[in-house]
């Protein structure tokens, strides 16, 4: 059942999509959209309207698939929620789509009405009315409207009403203070929240694919172990409580298990991949080799696991069945591979590769064919997929110097075509980003 929902989420394409955008087309020409003022009758509602318009505008523009037509060119300035637009006026300024909305106060809360028009065909293609109890939900409303517009026009699942969990970093590079933090996908400061206090080192948070739970690694009492953190209840719980380090955790597609590395002292502290059932707490060992096996990531159908191993000498990427059978190397290029992450669409694996002194982030088919580099720099790490499988986030770190300067690390967003890279702003340095499913 859960898997069915996932499949629908990731593969549903609206039958009457106006645009069929696929990554194989390479760079996509952004679609021009006009967004009218979001009207409000009093100062509160006008303010909500401004905020909403800004959020929607930013989201759509940042996706790289839209650009908003300069407001100075708008000929018609009316509220077009109830009134039919003069489509000729919007055609003239080359707006292909037109969004208009208004905000009002009702006894149930704040009401938003939205209309989306296809200018060239001269018709309404989407309408929405929703009421929220208070203004704390305004940002989420902005993201939800953005998702609706994005989905209706591109035919792809949206990703705006989502969050990014990451590691916030501060302090000298040799005694870095690291805290788990979470924010809206756009990195807006109003949405930013710290989840841990910085007392213990924390690393590599990852979201469950279908709920608001994260798994991560923490050095509690100097013992590096895997934990889960329920964002709704605030509960934290150890998962890998064995003698020996547990690390590199990721959820299975049904969010019921965690696949991770366990470095067993009885196995010469060699890291092997284990699957831990979160309900029964039973664990099964999936790999058995004298090399390091780490960074496991499930395919979205739960049948396969891609992982990083140096069993052949240098670190490379391998795929195995979910029970550990049929291990096959998939990385074919030169260099040192790591961080493999299976796309939520199932079609690609993102990875890092160190070669010729630089890190590269790229994608390859699940059999290792068609490797493409998306971005290259001195230090790049931790690629993570957007829930719709179209974008990656990752971190980029500058070189550091003997006097302690440098080493700044920031979170970036990029379309997997390699276009439209942006920094996702964070109040301090940021690393190890991971994307939530749609809220």
């Amino acid at each position: 059942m859960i898997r069915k929902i996932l499949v629908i989420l990731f593969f549903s394409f609206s039958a009457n999509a106006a645009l069929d955008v696929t990554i194989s087309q390479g760079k996509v020409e952004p679609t021009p959209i006009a967004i009218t003022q979001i009207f409000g009758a009093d100062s509160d509602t006008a303010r909500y309207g401004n905020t909403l318009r800004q959020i929607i505008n930013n989201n759509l523009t940042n996706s790289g698939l839209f650009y908003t037509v300069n407001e100075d060119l708008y000929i018609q300035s009316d509220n077009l929620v109830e009134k039919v637009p003069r489509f000729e006026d919007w055609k003239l300024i080359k707006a292909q789509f037109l969004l208009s909305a208004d905000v009002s106060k009702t006894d149930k809360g704040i009401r938003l009405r939205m209309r989306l028009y296809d200018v060239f065909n001269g018709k309404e293609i989407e309408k929405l009315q929703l009421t929220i109890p208070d203004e704390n939900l305004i940002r989420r409303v902005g993201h939800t409207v953005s998702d609706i517009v994005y989905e209706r026009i591109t035919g792809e699942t949206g990703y705006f009403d989502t969050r990014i969990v990451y590691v916030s970093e501060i302090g000298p590079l040799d005694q870095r203070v690291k805290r788990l933090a979470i924010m809206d996908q756009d990195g807006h400061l109003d949405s930013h929240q710290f989840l841990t206090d910085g007392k213990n080192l924390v690393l590599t948070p990852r979201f469950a694919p279908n709920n608001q739970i994260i798994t991560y690694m923490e050095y509690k009492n100097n013992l590096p172990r895997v934990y889960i953190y329920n964002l709704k209840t605030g509960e934290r719980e150890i998962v890998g409580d064995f003698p020996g380090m547990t690390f590199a955790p990721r959820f299975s597609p049904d969010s019921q298990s965690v696949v991770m590395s366990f470095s067993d002292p009885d196995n010469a502290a060699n890291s092997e991949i284990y699957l831990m059932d979160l309900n029964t707490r039973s664990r099964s060992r999936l790999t058995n080799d004298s090399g390091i096996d780490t960074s496991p990531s499930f395919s979205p159908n739960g049948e396969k696991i891609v992982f990083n191993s140096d069993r052949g000498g240098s670190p490379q990427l391998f795929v195995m069945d979910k029970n550990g059978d049929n291990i096959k190397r998939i990385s074919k290029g030169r260099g040192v591979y790591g961080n493999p992450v299976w796309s939520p669409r199932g079609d690609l694996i993102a990875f890092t590769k160190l070669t010729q002194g630089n890190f590269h982030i790229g994608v390859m088919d699940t059999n290792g064919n068609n490797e493409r580099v998306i971005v290259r720099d001195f230090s790049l790490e931790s690629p993570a997929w957007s829930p719709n499988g179209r974008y990656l986030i990752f971190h980029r770190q500058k070189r550091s110097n003997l006097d302690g300067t440098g080493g700044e690390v920031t979170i970036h967003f990029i379309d997997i075509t390699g276009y439209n890279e942006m920094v996702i702003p964070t109040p301090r340095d940021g690393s190890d980003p991971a994307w939530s499913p749609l809220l």
Partner: protein
Amino acid sequence: MLKKLFMLIVAGFFLASCATTKTEEGGNVDAASTSSSSSSGGEITAGTQEDLIVNVGDRVFFEFDSSELTVDAQATLDAQAAWLMQYPDTNITVEGHADERGTREYNLALGDKRAFSVYSYLAQAGIDTNRMEYVSWGKERPEVIGSDETAYSQNRRGVTLVSN
């Protein structure tokens, strides 16, 4: 002020590293005492971390992407084992570290293998495993900040810490 102190410490480590790689233990002692005297200046108490650093050597270094103990590393660990025999009430934690040129997760694994290499070498040399723990810090706690081989070679290390 802080920066100056930092530079002193770094300089001390460079000297120490040159000594450990190029000369016998005598050179190591001299170089290491330069850095320790700048912070304490007093007498060294036997059986302490300071004693270990100054008179034995608290760390071993690894080749790139390797957890194998070099000949130099084994010599240092033989001396550490003798020292630990001499102070039987001393417990230790061995830390394994990696340089920054690998993924976080791979380096955690590598750091653990390095720490375990040291731990098991000392165990084979007769040190009771009840006296020892080990932990990997991956690339999270570099000894020397910097994005070049000079820093990396100092950061690929196993460090023995007196824990009581």
